């Protein structure tokens, strides 16, 4: 039986990754292993901080998922230890502690992203995919291109099929983030965190409204849809 929603599987995922999961809860670890494998990745699991550290130190992983509270050696110390040995593998921290300062200490210890338990698997998968590709990123590129959509980061202009599209500053940032992660699922909370820098959950789903507004600007009058909704997960920018 499949873990991923059907809609999710419609979208082809990028290259398979080698992922290390350090999680002491057997059931949660099994679930993650099954689900991530299903998404096409190779998954290794460590049940405590010590063995996790050894595995991470010797194996060459694309991304790690580390629980914060682990037996023998806690997650933050594992990450800090790896960082001090020059290991820069992207890390997603999983934690039951979700307050602002917990997140700050987690990221300060060397984590790259922070996800609070309980989480939706689609959220975790989207974040892991984005993290992994951060290494070969489009930081240096000044122009992002997806299909016939073009975004110039310097002149702050957006064109589709050579037609200029006028966007509000926030809409520009939103599109910039989506284009930067084109071909990847981006969740609502990821957008809220990265475009608005909010780590709380607004009561009404404000992000959907922003997306539909942006969508009407970049799709209305053009032939093909480019900003897709991934049901049960989020959004994806992808040329048809």
């Amino acid at each position, binding site marked *: 039986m499949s873990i991923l929603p059907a809609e999710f599987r419609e979208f082809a995922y990028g290259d398979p990754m080698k992922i290390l999961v350090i999680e002491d809860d057997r059931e949660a670890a099994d679930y993650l292993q099954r689900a991530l494998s299903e998404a096409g990745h190779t998954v290794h699991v460590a049940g405590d901080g010590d063995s996790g550290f050894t595995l991470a130190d010797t194996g060459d992983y694309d991304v790690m998922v580390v629980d914060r509270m682990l037996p023998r050696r806690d997650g933050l110390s594992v990450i800090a230890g790896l960082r001090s040995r020059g290991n820069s593998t992207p890390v997603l921290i999983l934690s039951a502690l979700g*307050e602002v300062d917990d997140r700050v200490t987690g990221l300060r210890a060397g984590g790259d992203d922070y996800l609070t338990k*309980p989480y939706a698997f689609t959220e975790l998968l989207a974040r892991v995919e984005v993290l992994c590709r951060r290494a070969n990123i489009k930081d240096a590129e000044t122009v992002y291109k997806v299909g016939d959509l073009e975004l110039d980061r310097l002149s702050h202009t957006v064109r589709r099929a050579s037609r200029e599209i006028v966007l509000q500053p926030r809409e520009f940032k939103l599109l910039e983030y989506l284009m930067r992660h084109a071909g990847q699922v981006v969740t609502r909370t990821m957008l809220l965190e990265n475009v608005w820098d909010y780590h709380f*959950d*607004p009561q*009404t789903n404000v992000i959907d409204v922003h997306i539909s507004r942006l969508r009407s600007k970049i799709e209305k009058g053009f032939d093909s849809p480019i900003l897709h909704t991934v049901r049960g997960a989020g959004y994806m920018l992808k040329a048809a």
Partner: protein
Amino acid sequence: MRLPASFRTTAARLSALYLLLFGLCAVALVFYMTALSARMLASQTQDTINEEVVGLANAYQRGGLPLLVRTVERRSRQPGANLYLIADANGRILSGNVESLEPGVLDVEGWTERPFSYQRFGEGERRARSAAVPEAPAAESEVRHAAIALVLRMPNQMIMLVGRDLGEPERFRVIVRRSLMAALGIMGLGALLIWFFVGRRALKRIDNVSEASRRIMGGDLSGRLPVTGAGDEFDRLSENLNVMLGRIAELNEGLKQVSDNIAHDLKTPLTRLRNRAEAALGGAPGDKGYREALEATIAESDQLIRTFNAILMISRLEAGYSAEQTAPVDLSEVVRDVVELYEPVAEETEVALAADVPAGMTIEGNRELIAQAVSNIVDNAIKYTAGTNAAPRVTVALEKRGGEIVLAVSDNGPGIPEEADRKRATERFVRLEQSRSQPGSGLGLSLAKAVMKFHGGRLDLEPRDPGLSVIMSFPVGKET
């Protein structure tokens, strides 16, 4: 058992220390005073002797040796007379009222260097006469006195001595010594008394405080330490500890409320969740039915998590959590961002969202918390105003008012007409009857209120005609 305990008190130690210090001071003072007055007496004595010598010199000049001897004889007989002595060159006594003196006194001319002992004429006899039993040597030694004197050698090699008895300074010294002893005795007694009363009193009060704190530790959290009303350091200590106890009781009460709320309000959705799963199991099996039930279950769990997070956050805020997580926050920017975040929602629900936000209003605080509070309030305003009248509108206004920065979110919706309801609206989990149909955990306003309290501000609900104003007042004290 009582006494050793009293000895160990601070009061006893302090009393002993003070006693020692005062004693040392008193002794030093007395010694200084005695030395000073002795020197004064000595110089007085010397002055007197000098005067005598001048008088005698005059007599010698006027009438030679005979007049000098006569003058000496006359003066010697006066009561309380000074000491006079005229001796030949070999030190044999010729005239005067001194019968014998320490050997060697007459050998050195000038002031005698130290007091010497002597015997007056007639004293030995008088003593011998009054004493029935002849105890001469003892009596003799007894009447020897100490004196100082000026020894002069006259031009004809005869020796003249003029001196004065030291009986007076001696008596003075004895008096001083006796009063010193008495004073030290009284001081010691006083110290003992003070220590006894003060120490015991302090001990008793500390015992009272210990007793009260034992009671409180025993579980009586409403108990307080005794305050006598004297306003002294013990009272201040007790008052501060009482304030602390009050704070602890408050936190404890908050904790209890949270657990009550969790028990009551999380159980309801959990029951719903369980019922739904049970119903799905009991109903006709089918992919569609299961799917719907599971989707509803996930949605319900997400809502539960959201509620749970909000409760945790409120209680942590109310416990005054991580005050170090504050920094200067540009309130204008935060408010503008939130308005911008909600603008599309407002447009979609046809609510006119207007903002009057002047730039540069800065406070000390936590951006994330303030943004969350403001977004909860704007969210509510839009949610409860949409579709209630022909031209629904929500205005967000930020302004400096007195010593505060005030953010008012006003709408022209139905508002909350009853004052009691307005008061209840910010309580946890309270969802007024009118709003039961709207989604939400009922924690939005409580969270905003907790955030305001965390920032030292207030959250007030004010009625408008028609509508409601939610007023957030931030203190401007820490403005940068």
